[in-house]
């Protein structure tokens, strides 16, 4: 099953995302900020990255740029988790190299539907 890297500084969001994805049979790697996520991504190839934008240490935008610079993450789907108020964040994430976005708040069902769409 596909392996997903879930990045969010909020423990509850991370728990919710991880629980939902694991429940659907995905392998989930969790990270609390961009720096930790980058480390995790380097340590083992993941099939999809799901990242919050606003995080301490390294934010989501910087993470996306760093990931895209890695040869084995050039085409890996990266989805950002953004709030509806941050429409410019969608674009910012996109231009940094994100594949797409999921708008917060989202339900577990919406999350899974989007993930399935991307991973096929």
């Amino acid at each position, binding site marked *: 099953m596909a392996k997903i890297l879930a990045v969010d500084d*909020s423990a*509850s969001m991370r728990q919710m995302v991880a629980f939902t994805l694991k429940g659907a049979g995905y392998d989930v790697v969790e990270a609390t900020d961009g720096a930790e996520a980058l480390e995790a991504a380097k340590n083992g190839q993941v099939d999809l990255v799901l990242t919050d934008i*606003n995080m301490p240490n390294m934010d989501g935008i910087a993470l996306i740029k760093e990931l*895209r610079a890695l040869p084995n993450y050039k085409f890996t789907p990266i989805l950002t988790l953004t709030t509806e*108020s941050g429409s410019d964040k969608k674009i910012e994430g996109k231009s940094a190299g994100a594949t797409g976005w999921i*708008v917060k*708040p*989202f339900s577990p*069902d919406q999350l899974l539907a989007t993930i399935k769409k*991307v991973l096929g």
Partner: protein
Amino acid sequence: MTVDMSQFYQTFLEESFEGLDTMESCLLNLDVGDADIEAVNTIFRAAHSIKGGAATFGFDEVAEFTHVVETLLDQIRSGERPVEQNLVDYFLQSVDCLRTMLHAVQSEAPVMTDDVRALMQALEAALGGEHVATVESSTSDAQTTNSDGSGGQWSIQFSPHATLMKTGNDPVRILRELSSLGDMTAMLDVTSLPVLSEIDPEVCYLKWTIDLNTDAAEADIAEVFEWVSDDCDLQINSSMVQQSSEQSTAPVSHEKKITPDAEAPENGLDIVSLETSFKLLQPQANELAKRFYETLFLRYPQVKELFKNTSIEQQQGKLIAALQTVMQQIREPEKLADTVFALGQRHQNYGAEKDHYALVGETLIYVMADMAGEHWTSKIEQAWRQALSMIAEIMLSAYSTKTPVASDKVTDAKPSGAAPAPAKPSVTSDKNTASTAPKMASGESGSIRVSTDKIDGLINMVGELVITQSMLGQLGEDMDMSKIEKLRDGLAQLERNTRELQESVMQIRMLPISFAFQRFPRMVRDLQTKLGKQIELKLSGEQTELDKTVMEKIGDPLVHLVRNSVDHGIELPAERVKAGKPEKGVVHLDAYHQGGNIVIEINDDGAGLNKERILEKARSQGVVGADEELTDERIYDLIFQPGFSTAAEVSDVSGRGVGMDVVKRNIRELGGSIEVSSQPGVGSSFKIRLPLTLAILDGQLVRVGNETYIIPLVSIIESLQVKNENVNAIAGQAELYKLREEYIPIMRLYEVFDVDPDSEDLTKGLLVVVEGDGQRAGVFVDDLLGQQQVVIKSLETNFKRIEGISGATILGDGTVALILDVGGIVKVSQNTKGRPKRSKSAVDKSKKDLDEKLLEISDGANKAA
């Protein structure tokens, strides 16, 4: 897939409270006019997370409120708006407001109060009346469905830019998604494809013309291309309009299904079968429960251990209650899941393991089938199997979300509120049902966050321990004298491993004291406004770590002391100027490690304690004799007496009915001590000394006759051999020992504890000079044994508190040794002054009382006989 969101509430609340604390401390440090951008970012991030979580978990009011706060913060962050004092005040109020709201969420009380609304309006006004888009409640539906009936035949021109694939998007995925909307024919245009040798695999050269026959709306189609709208040229044309307006591209419904239909039950449970069979068995519930446990223990004796702390009658009551709760809530899956989840958490505490659920399920089905007899059908059995496995699954899911670290779990594991009368299980089941309801932990949380580093460290150490163990194991297999050296090395290694492991485990519970300090900036800020004083609060040593439990318990005493310093210590600005001091007073909180203790100091540069008034009051209360002379130290110490307050008037700030005596008692309960020193006009200083952890102490083993006692090493000043010329007997009763320039009372431990010593001759034993509560005493013992770290066990768990003893521990040979409560012992010795045999005679008296009582009983029996 149904995900029970309530399981994340606790985490959400915990992190939100933490976020609010962070916001508060950053706000307090924010310089108006010249705000640190990083601080603003941190504040924004905290608000942002709270909003996101609140919206996700359905706390709409919280999300709505935070949204306004966040919008304001965002404007500051982006530089649109300067940091102004009134904004900072608003934000601080918002922090308080959000705390209240989250507490309301926690206790399921109404969240949106008038206060909240008023503050929200004020914030909106601050936003300049500009419209704040309210957060879409619950989930935002991007997939709008076609309601205006424009479904039909679509022709789509999709020409990806060369860069489309660079963002991880894949035209194939988009086509696949499109095809899921209806009948699709895609025509590939390869005209831009270069010759093979020139192809760059990272570039997209292809274009498509797509015919799509679908009931979906144009928006749905456009949404497929949403992520790539900037990375392609896209044309969507309706080629034929169909009239079928009632389309049915299943809209994704995000509403929670609360009441499942009985015919098509949620989770695929056969509720009808469950209910019918349960009704059938309900009259025999008692018998069912009884037989269940009999069968369970008969079949699986290994589970009996789990029930060792509880009575089977109680368990039977609990089982019935649990079954009833399940059946009552079976049509409300959300609620049921909460209940079962909570039950799972408790079961984890009892030590139930995954495998046990299957055993329990099998047994229950077996017993039910047996009792239902011919009414038991395979359909019913199937329904129960399904239900039980679902329940087990939910219960087990509760396991993973809890960190089984905190020691308070141990007490949780004990069945609480046990009803003494076994004939009334309804009482038990009643309580049981009540406590099964999903409860969000209030106040002190039982969980602790542990960094992965600490866990990794532990795992490594356990690894080493295993290696040492196997090494020793091999050594033991064919042992001879030549290997004695190796054995010694191995044992040394084992000792080191054990010690390291112990330290690391203790380390898990250690948190920086900043957790306890962080509330003070705000508190002092509020107080100084209220009192018209100017105060600077200095914090230092915030990174000093101490045990979580100690931290939780020291919070209130600290608040009391700081409040006291601000209220009674620091003078009003005018007075300060008159006394030649700066207008602004300083309250300094400092924490540091000293020996095995953590020391917390609260210093102020205020007026100092009023010695005369304290003495006067003590004399009027009769605590101190009219012509008794006291050292300054003793006078200051009087403020810790019960009912002692010298504040001329009870102020709103400090006069809350809790005195310094309570502060002192709380600290003593933690095994710590508090001292006060003061200088008139210069200030006061309180020094709190606390053990780093409650679970372990460094002990000195001492021997009196055949008994071994442990004296906490921290309270020992020195140990010495008694010189007869230094012993002074007062009135032939109390004994004092002249230690350099000081006289300390001698306490013969064998006398206090009523045991047979080796010798009653002071010169034949040793005097251990201890200090507790600022008082010294010499404890006379026969001998000093070794020093060692001991794990503190409570006497109260199964017995009760004993004066002069703080607990017990288990020594290496498995026997129990008592730990002396030095403060208590010193007190005993003080009381003994002039009445040296008091404690002993008290025992004699209680013994006599009892003997008399028992005599009466046997007298009565004799008479009757």
